[in-house]
């Protein structure tokens, strides 16, 4: 383990990584929202979000409601109603519900447990975005390998994940799993 790791090098790397992380996030968001205008193979999101998105909230929530997000959203809203839902652990839905309640409070200044589908997904998506995964991964790699270059390379590669949509936005467990697994 090198004892002469330059503080300036580390700070420089982290600075570049923060910028590239935001840039890749923006590119991912842009591609996601543009592609969601294409015809859907499965139109079930429109059943939940009532046809064409009519409000800003539904517009932002629409591309996030795919696949397992249905199950997480339903658990967040109604609790564990059906037996198959027990395959999903409660952490994600809890975060969605808490986030949605906070958003609702910010908008209406009244505390309420009754949250909308759109609110749940936006809250979940927002929390997913703000897990500080890149800097955590940098410090973890530095701890194990002692090399700022290795840490920098690893984090740059981590900005090209194999599933950007679920990792960064979706309320599936992945963003939280990533952050927590990076923290060890």
């Amino acid at each position: 383990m090198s004892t002469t790791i330059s503080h300036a090098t580390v700070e420089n790397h982290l600075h570049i990584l923060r910028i590239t992380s935001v840039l890749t996030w923006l590119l991912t968001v842009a591609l996601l929202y543009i592609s969601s205008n294409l015809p859907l193979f499965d139109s079930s999101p429109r059943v939940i979000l009532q046809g064409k998105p009519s409000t800003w909230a539904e517009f932002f929530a629409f591309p996030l409601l795919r696949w397992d997000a249905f199950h997480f959203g339903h658990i967040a809203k109604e609790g564990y109603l059906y037996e198959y839902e027990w395959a999903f652990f409660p952490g994600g839905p809890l975060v969605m519900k808490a986030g949605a309640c906070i958003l609702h409070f910010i908008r209406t200044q009244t505390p309420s447990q009754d949250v909308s589908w759109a609110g749940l997904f936006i809250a979940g998506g927002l929390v997913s975005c703000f897990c500080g995964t890149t800097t955590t991964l940098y410090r973890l790699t530095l701890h194990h390998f002692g090399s700022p270059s290795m840490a920098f390379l690893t984090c740059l590669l981590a900005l090209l994940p194999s599933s950007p949509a679920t990792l960064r936005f979706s309320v599936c467990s992945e963003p939280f799993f990533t952050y927590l697994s990076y923290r060890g």
Partner: protein
Amino acid sequence: MLILMAKQISIVRVLAAGALAALTCAAFVLHQWTAYASYCMAEAGTDRPWCNNFPPFIYPYVQEKYWNVGFLRYWTLSQLPNILLATPILALLYSYSLSYIHHALLPSVLTHPILSRITRSSKWLTWLSKNPTSPLMNASIAPHALHSFILASILLFSAHTQIALRLAASLPFTYWAAARLLVEYPRIGKWWVGWSIIWGSVSIVLWAVFLPPA
């Protein structure tokens, strides 16, 4: 892994590691207990087949019944494209974890004072215990290597294999493996970067139009 690095195994460390592991498992057990209390301890009529299992966990039952999860159950012809989509990332995980187990973990275990006498008495074990040193094979990432190997195997043989694309992206080990590719096998490393960019973009579009693999 401090246990392997130290020359003596401390009971306190073993107990501490066990306690931390139990804490992680406690959340899972609590979730299962909540399900048990809801279905098996409520009034008559809500009893389910898994209530009589040992242990009475809802999770394996639900995975098997509703998602058809089980050893080799996913290996059907119609799921072959999903499995093929996951092969790059599974190959990456296997290559680094197996290499690590062979070149770093086994040598360090076999040359530990407790086992070294047994190792020296066998030609095959002695061969296995040779370890070419490399900065990418340090002892502290052994848990990551073992975890990745086991997770990749579960994903390949028992689960819906395409979720490897989601799960592996959450592991630091995946990106260490990719960094190793770029450093030790640059040509394959470049293919990895190219695949990541192309597949990452394609997967966003597939997610948005609600197509597999997601």
